[in-house]
């Protein structure tokens, strides 16, 4: 439909062909709002997706939006809001240049993730540019599709190491009729206990956060339904709730204003607290924990802290040599083989995820 003039597929394809011919490596970049994330890059050139933008199609009754990777999240969210729809995974925008491509490449998902699913859960299909400079289309625009391997979801969270996400079709959801946030002043233990109790009940919870003796719970849905659920949960109603959740999502909350290294811990939600409470912010019913700390890698990554979970060095002014949790040998071998299957010449985002590829 519109925005045809913003289709840079051919140019991008040529850039990859050139990289193959010259032996150059490429860093994939759109808005650059997540340059801080992942290991530091050593690529010879940047392949810019920023101009490859525009909503390709959006039909509210189909609950699907298809947009090019360089499209800003803001534009997508505006288009959806005009039709009382939204991205269900509440993606963060660390600055206003955040794009759909970057969001998907990192599988970035906000507070709603624990209750409605992550970015990867809403990806229906995508066009990718692989390391052989081929434009490939996988999945589609329908909710149910099991033809072929799920390459679109594999690309989501692969940090561009398997290729460039060129465009994607995303399932969208109706905006809830209303939201209400309650705040309770309680201890961490009590907060985790309550969150687990609530999660066993069919309550319309859409976000949760604990920080400095305050438990915040957002309810979303039909107005009368959330009023009733609010009576079960109780607490003081938070007035500036929208701004509060934005500040958690986009990390503008005072907790995140720090020179200390920011760690992201993804764990079983009932894992006991092991780090100083004042330096930890909890989300996702306890399954996501942000930690500010100047402790060493070894201390933070100690196995006893991460039973069947993992830890990411999210933001740091120091060394970004080891960012993601080390993979067991058989899984690493599989990652290397998959990397080779998509990017046989080793062109894209080398080392952004792991030093080995």
């Amino acid at each position, binding site marked *: 439909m519109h925005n045809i003039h913003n289709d840079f597929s051919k140019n991008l394809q040529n850039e990859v062909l050139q990289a193959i011919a010259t032996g150059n490596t490429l860093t994939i970049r759109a808005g650059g709002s997540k340059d801080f994330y992942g290991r530091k890059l050593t690529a010879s050139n940047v392949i810019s997706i920023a101009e490859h933008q525009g909503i390709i199609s959006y*039909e509210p009754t189909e*609950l699907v939006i298809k947009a090019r990777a360089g499209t800003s999240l803001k534009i997508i969210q505006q288009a959806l809001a005009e039709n009382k729809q939204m991205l269900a995974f509440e993606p963060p925008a660390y600055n206003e240049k955040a794009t759909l491509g970057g969001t998907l490449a990192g599988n970035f998902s906000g507070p709603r993730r624990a209750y409605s699913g992550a970015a990867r859960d809403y990806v229906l299909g995508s066009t990718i540019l692989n390391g052989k400079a081929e434009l*490939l289309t996988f999945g589609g*625009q*329908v909710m149910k599709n099991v033809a072929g391997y799920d390459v679109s979801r*594999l690309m989501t*969270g692969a940090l561009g190491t398997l290729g460039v996400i060129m465009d994607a079709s995303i399932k969208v959801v109706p905006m809830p009729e209303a939201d209400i946030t309650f705040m309770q002043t309680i201890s961490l233990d009590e907060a985790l206990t309550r969150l687990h109790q609530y999660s066993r009940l069919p309550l319309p919870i859409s976000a949760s956060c604990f920080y400095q003796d305050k438990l915040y719970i957002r309810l979303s849905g039909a107005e009368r339904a959330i009023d*009733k659920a609010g009576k079960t949960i109780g607490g003081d109603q938070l007035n500036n709730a929208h701004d509060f959740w934005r500040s958690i999502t986009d990390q503008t909350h005072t907790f995140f204003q720090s020179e200390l290294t920011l760690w992201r811990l993804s764990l079983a*939600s009932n894992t006991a607290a092991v780090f100083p409470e004042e330096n930890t912010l909890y989300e996702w019913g306890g399954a996501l924990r942000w930690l500010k700390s100047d402790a060493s890698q070894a201390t933070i990554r100690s196995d006893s802290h991460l039973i069947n979970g993992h830890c990411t060095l999210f933001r740091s002014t120091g060394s970004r040599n080891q960012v993601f949790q080390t993979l067991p040998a058989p899984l690493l071998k599989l990652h290397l083989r998959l990397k080779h299957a998509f990017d046989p010449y080793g062109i894209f985002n080398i080392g952004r995820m792991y030093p080995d590829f």
Partner: protein
Amino acid sequence: MSQNSTKSVNRQQLRKLLLQILPSESILVQEEDLRPYECDGLSAYRQVPLIVALPDTSGQVQNILRLCNKINLPVVVRGAGTGLSGGALPHEHGLLLSLAKLKNIISIDEKLRTACVQPGVRNLAISQAVDHLGLFYAPDPSSQIACTIGGNVAENSGGVHCLKYGLTVHNIQQIKIISIEGELMTIGGDGLDCPGYDLLALMTGSEGMLGVIIEITVKLLPKPDCTQTLLAAFNDISKAGNAVANIISAGIIPAGLELMDKLAIQAAEDFVHAGYPTNAAAILLCELDGSEIEVATHADAVRGLLNNSGATEVLTAQNAQQSLTFWKGRKAAFPAVGRISPDYYCMDGTIPRKSLARVLQAIADMSQQYGLAIANVFHAGDGNLHPLILYDANIPGEQARAEEFGAKILELCIEVGGTITGEHGVGMEKLDQMCVQFKTKELIQFHAVKAAFDVKALLNPGKAVPTLHRCAEFGAMHIHHGKLPHPELERF
């Protein structure tokens, strides 16, 4: 893809090798013992396997795979054998690995709302095991009484409730797999995400091509407080199709939204007496769930939308019993159609909702053209069609005609921007249509993914992704709009 498999091992030699891993009663070699494994739910395709192995520990599975890898023996994994695309069709020179004995629920974590189960656990058994905790496992394929969770993961199964609760891929948290090389890997974890690539998504729906799933941790959901079922009758199927779009665009996502056409209504009514209006051209079943207030609010809105969309009658189930009765007809629709026709062929395309009316009309026209009746029963909310083509395999040529008709339906699904399979998988059945849905370079990419996991192509060879050779041959027979598909390939 199985050219590299050897025929050098005969049944008795293989039995000897397997006896080092399994007790003799877990190895089947006699013709009459092998016969029950010759097909899955798609009985049109049959093949007796060379041998059947029935391990009851993951260690045995690991050793069997190591053996197969060593002697280059193809392996086909099977759960309950309820699949509808021939995905578990045995390989003539291969081992059929049945995981039916791995049927323990390993643990249930009430706090984390998860259940860790072996692959042979039946889908419904999971919800039954956690019912007393007020929890359930959401994906509910219509074969849920019999089908196993391992097969559900391999096929990314859906069901009536996936409109609201998602497919298998949205409802699992961790799996353990064994590669063809015998390596055990844990994919996923206790957190909501894991480091590295999303192999959980890649494995889900991979149809036994990439690895053998030996343990699954599923997510459980709290049972909704309240459920309400509405039944609307229409005198025109396209009005029913439009009603679906109207409900969704009003911002309501029902737990289930199912459509049945006249033939399906009549067959179901004759079979289970669900109280369906048999003079209707179509009925819509709409299930709403959630809190009592939410359900009441949405039920009012949906009733209004159905009436405005031209429903001739809207019934609201007055109690749980009546709701069950409404659903009984839908759930029994396939066997009900089985009663009125000697054979039927079930298709599984998905289309954008906006194309419902057009596609249903085209299917009706083709039904005339092929001289084969069709019954439509489907997940209208997510555009997943299940046209049932009625035929009689004893009438020469009818099965071939039914298959051709089915293929045309799938190609129509692709044409309107949909897909050839929403939840049943490609298996053996839809290989040719994969050549239509994907271009050569995408198929090459799929083969590269396969090779990353299974370089010798021993796992489920010849399924799910067609060889380029096959597509070239199919393309030669099948020229669409005068365009030769895969023009870059040699023709044989």
